[in-house]
């Protein structure tokens, strides 16, 4: 009887904790949804769902004459996809070379990658800003993509190399016996087996432009070039509060697809992280 009572108390307390957590987690999201339905540009009512809700802000956002939101969305997707493809290609090539060949400079190369991986990519913030000015890459997406790809190489190459090391070398050797060339073994034997890790690298590099703020803010100067992160920040900070309702609508439209994508890919994502992270 005592056991049963303590169990009930324990479970009730647990559910209570989760109820509180659920409120803390969901409340901001509901609040911003309410804000996005508020007419006008600033928040005045204190109730969570406004008295006369309106979809006007969503219409404004999709109207190119009133907001650049669609341009920012497109910019972000463009930068994301291009840096994802470039990262996957360069990382696969490098990781394959490090994993399968023994050549002069290999050890030093791997060591350099380890050290580079420890240096946060914005440690060179000032240099990136000045260099972008020197080379004329300031305010271009190309400059941003180059920085994202370069910054993603060291860590992802280590992840990918670790995975390729676990693919048995006998496979490539038997293919070589059958007369397959270097590139063919890479492309037709090893890469198909490395698909799970390719997916992890792809996701890793795809989300960078959606989450990075500092580098994009340094490189991109004109509103037409902004990615979503800076665009939304400018909406909020321009004159504080004055565009908050529009920002709210914009943030809902970015948060929902990303959250759905994340939740559905979560399993793979997490397994990749634990494989790379816990093994160290």
């Amino acid at each position, binding site marked *: 009887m005592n056991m049963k009572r303590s169990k009930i108390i324990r479970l009730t307390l647990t559910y209570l904790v989760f109820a509180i957590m659920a409120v803390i987690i969901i409340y901001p999201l509901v609040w911003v949804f309410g804000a996005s339905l508020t007419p006008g540009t600033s928040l005045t009512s204190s109730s969570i769902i406004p008295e006369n809700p309106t979809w006007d802000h969503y219409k404004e956002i999709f109207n190119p004459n009133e907001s650049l939101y669609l341009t920012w969305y497109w910019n972000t997707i463009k930068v994301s996809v291009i840096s994802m493809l470039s990262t996957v290609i360069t990382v696969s090539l490098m990781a394959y070379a490090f994993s399968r060949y023994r050549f002069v400079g290999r050890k030093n190369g791997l060591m350099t990658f380890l050290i580079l991986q420890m240096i946060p990519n914005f440690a060179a913030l000032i240099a990136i800003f000045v260099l972008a000015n020197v080379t004329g890459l300031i305010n271009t997406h190309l400059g941003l993509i180059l920085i994202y790809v370069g910054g993603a190489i060291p860590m992802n190459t280590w992840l990918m190399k670790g995975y390729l090391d676990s693919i048995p070398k006998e496979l490539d050797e038997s293919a070589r016996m059958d007369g397959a060339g270097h590139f063919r073994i890479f492309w037709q034997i090893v890469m198909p087996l490395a698909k799970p890790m390719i997916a992890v690298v792809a996701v890793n590099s795809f989300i960078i432009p959606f989450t990075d703020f500092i580098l994009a803010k340094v490189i991109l100067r004109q509103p037409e070039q902004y990615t979503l992160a800076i665009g939304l920040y400018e909406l909020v900070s321009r004159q504080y509060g004055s565009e908050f309702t529009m920002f709210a609508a914009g943030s809902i439209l970015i948060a929902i697809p990303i959250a759905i994508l994340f939740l559905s890919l979560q399993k793979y994502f*997490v397994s990749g992280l634990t494989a790379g992270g*816990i093994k160290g």
Partner: protein
Amino acid sequence: MSNEYTSNHRKIATILSIIPGLGQFYNRQYLKGFLFLILGFSFVIAFWDFIDIGLWGIFTLGTQVPRDNSVFLMVYGIIAFILLALAVIVMIINLRDAYKNGEKRDMGQKLNSVREQYHNLIDSGFPYLMLSPGFLLLLFVVILPIVFVLLLAFTNYDLYHTWPAQLTDWVGIQNFIDLFTLDVWRETFLSVFAWTVIWTFGATTLQIALGIFLAILVNQKDLKGKAIIRTILILPWAVPAFVSILIFSGMFNESFGVINTTILNFLGIDPLPWMTDAMFTRIALIMIQTWLGFPFIFVMVTGVLQSIPGELYEAATIDGANGLQKFRKITLPLVMFSIAPILITQYTFNFNNFNVIFLFNSGGPAMPGQNAGGTDILISWIYDLTMTTQQYGMAAAITMIMSAIVIAVALWQFRRTKSFQEEDMM
């Protein structure tokens, strides 16, 4: 070995190859020699002037305005050094090749035919071919900027020493001296550094503790609805962080934010100065980062908990252990052991967590008597020095100090992980 040589081809070929290709001609490998010769000549023709200007520029940083732009000259200088390094590598390959083939001739062996050379090149060159695109990108996008920051820290590059009006000069370690001797710099640095440390430990420890606590709660066997609970708990990770931070900065806004107008009002508390009093901004920031960061730890710990075999707990129960003992002696050590590397990366992540500081309140509110905001951490202060006040030299010096800390922590962590000791990894 040496007395087996009957001739001196290897030495002659090596000496001749100081002009790339001649040694190969001497070894009668005309095609290869021709390629080396072309490579050598085109390097000299294409880059001679550039290297000349670069080397001159990096030492003097220019001598007259407006002709010389010191910062450009510095970049040229670094690139000149990179080009020279590449040239040295090619030169070594060239000399080695001439020596090896000369040695073969000395020992009376037949040299490889053009066809064999081609296959050799493909075999040993393939990994380099695969590495080259990524390597070049790293060289110019990652390594070049890092070297540039290192050098900038020793110059007086700022708003007043900028092209076209002024030259920038090497000033040795003056920036570091200023940072620790001039009152305004020293006080700002110390208070920013102190807050960075408090922030790193406060926010990270809270998010770790909350993550572990929730993971253990969810892992209770008799709990119903785990799937939905987990999904809700991961939501803060699924929503892009910059969106959540901006939402929070709206919620904490002093005039229309829901925290002051609704929640505190409901609890009967007067509105608090979240954005204008540094203490409250700091409290808000730590709470927000806990909100943002705990799901990651939660997911990691859940993974570990699910892999702990149930027999361990059964054995402990038989030995008469109670719930708390089981937690302290079994669960906690196992969890800590497996996620320790991740925990350290969490600390370094928050040490550099620019987004939450900048997006919430731009590092503000402003503080009297110092040139950083009340919640500026090192990285956001560096951003301000670069983008707002344009004190590049000082920003670079602070960057160096900050990077040294991060690298020291990373190296310490790295030496403890297994992969460093495993021979095969390297």
